[in-house]
């Protein structure tokens, strides 16, 4: 049950290839993720992001190439990899018929923790779900469901967490809640690999970003490095109109609802910095 401390990068992929019949989804994917960092795999639908995550999480076997997670080979040491990771898939992996607390206790039992009930109560408090703990998940909002989903992934403190499109289908408030959670994870030393199709999400959360396109990594670097590779920014004077998101958030005002526990109260406007629409 102990999580083995392993040297080397917590996630590394070399030459990953995968085909479904004639469809060549991955054509040689290479990357490494540093310990305790957030790494974003950015790409549009069908780029192969989920396939990469599934291979790393031992759900799929690669046709070629190797991958190691927490020092273990995903093909040969799948059991050790599973002890080291947690996967939050594209669709909230929660049991709708059980209550929030029962979901957490279930995962705690399956991870063979000595006191799953205490762990569940602690996580419910951290994710502001204590009030809803005894309700069936079917009655939860999309944001609550996602928070519960991520809370389930934290049980047992796995050193590596995969988040596959964690904010797809969420409303703006819920998305900000998830972002704060991800930031909190990284600051605790967990290695996070997240996939997203939202540029802003990668920009907000990730130290390194890799762009996956048609089964290949096109670029891989920090945001600053990626920016350097492209034509220098022109200075333009633009009248700054509030983005619709900012208007929405200031009207619906959710300052006190999200992210209880962090206490910093990131205001709606701070969470959505000015974006340049051109160049």
């Amino acid at each position, binding site marked *: 049950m102990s999580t083995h401390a392993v040297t080397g990068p917590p996630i590394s992929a070399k030459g990953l290839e995968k085909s479904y019949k004639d469809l060549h989804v991955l054509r040689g994917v290479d990357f490494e993720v540093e310990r305790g960092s957030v790494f974003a795999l950015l790409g549009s639908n069908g780029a192969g992001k989920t396939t990469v995550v599934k291979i790393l999480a031992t*759900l799929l076997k690669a046709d070629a190439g190797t991958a190691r997670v927490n020092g273990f080979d995903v093909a040969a040491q799948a*059991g050790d990899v599973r002890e080291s990771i947690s996967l939050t898939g*594209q669709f909230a*992996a929660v*049991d709708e*018929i059980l209550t929030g607390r029962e979901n957490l206790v279930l995962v705690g*039992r*399956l991870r*063979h923790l000595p006191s799953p009930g205490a762990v569940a109560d602690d996580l419910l408090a951290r994710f502001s779900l204590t009030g809803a703990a005894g309700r069936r998940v079917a009655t939860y909002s999309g944001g609550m469901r996602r928070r519960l*989903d991520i809370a389930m992934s934290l049980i047992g403190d796995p050193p590596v967490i995969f988040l596959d499109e964690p904010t797809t289908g969420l409303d703006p408030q819920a998305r900000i809640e998830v972002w704060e959670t991800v930031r909190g994870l990284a600051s605790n030393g967990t290695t996070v690999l997240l996939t997203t199709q939202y540029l802003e999400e990668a920009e907000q959360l990730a130290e390194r970003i890799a762009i996956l396109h048609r089964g290949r990594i096109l670029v891989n670097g920090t945001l600053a490095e990626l920016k350097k590779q492209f034509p220098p920014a022109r200075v333009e004077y633009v009248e700054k109109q509030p983005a619709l998101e900012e208007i929405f958030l200031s009207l619906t005002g959710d300052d006190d609802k999200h992210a209880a526990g962090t206490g910093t109260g990131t205001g709606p406007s701070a969470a959505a910095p000015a974006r340049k629409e051109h160049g």
Partner: protein
Amino acid sequence: MNTNFLGDTATLTGRSLRHIARSPDTIITTAVMPVAFMLLFVYVFGGAIDLGSGSGTGTADYVNYLLPGILLITIASGIAYTAFRLFQDMQGGIFERFQSMPVARSSVLWAHVLTSLVANLVSLGIVVGVALLMGFRSGAGIGAWLAVTGLLVVFTLALTWMAVIPGLTAKTVDGASAFSYPLIFLPFLSSAFVPTESMPGPVRWFAEHQPVTSIVNTIRDLLAQEPAGGDAWSALAWCVVTLVLFYALAMVVYRRRTG
């Protein structure tokens, strides 16, 4: 991998049993159709059915005659829910979550199978209760009842492992449960409702050689305190062979689906 098998199976079985406890309608609807068949056959067709005893067939006699086949229909309709529940798990992300966790691999399936067993035993209890109200009586002792229960358990397990396959592979909800219709129909082509002697040649041949007839005859003999004889052995053989075959097939499909 086997170290966690029992604990993980118990945990996951507890989860599915909670699902059933929170939607008891699945158990009730499982019992409704067989009960409806029983009412229909006893009170509508029953008067016209002669079991060949010479002195006509009373209602209570016919309930006693009918019950074994009705019990098999109950199981055949109950396992459709197993396929359904497994399909739901596959569709939601929860199945992948389990697969990516250090959980004994086959525990996920065993939990569904054991839950199916519990749910079907409850449905069978309801059906037997209704049969008692309709005049079913048996002087069978504990040994015979245990033998009947044992045979029904093996039969349930065999059909449940069969249900696991569409549960894992179906593309739609309807596809996941449609496989059970022929199974529900099978008892009609057996000795469950009328003696096979009354059937025309080819139908009679099929009825006498298909598994339902030997299982029905065995249960009927056990409940009537008569020696079950050769039927008992072929009933048991059918159930065990089906169980082993579908268990093996389901495991192959499971490994293929989960890599």
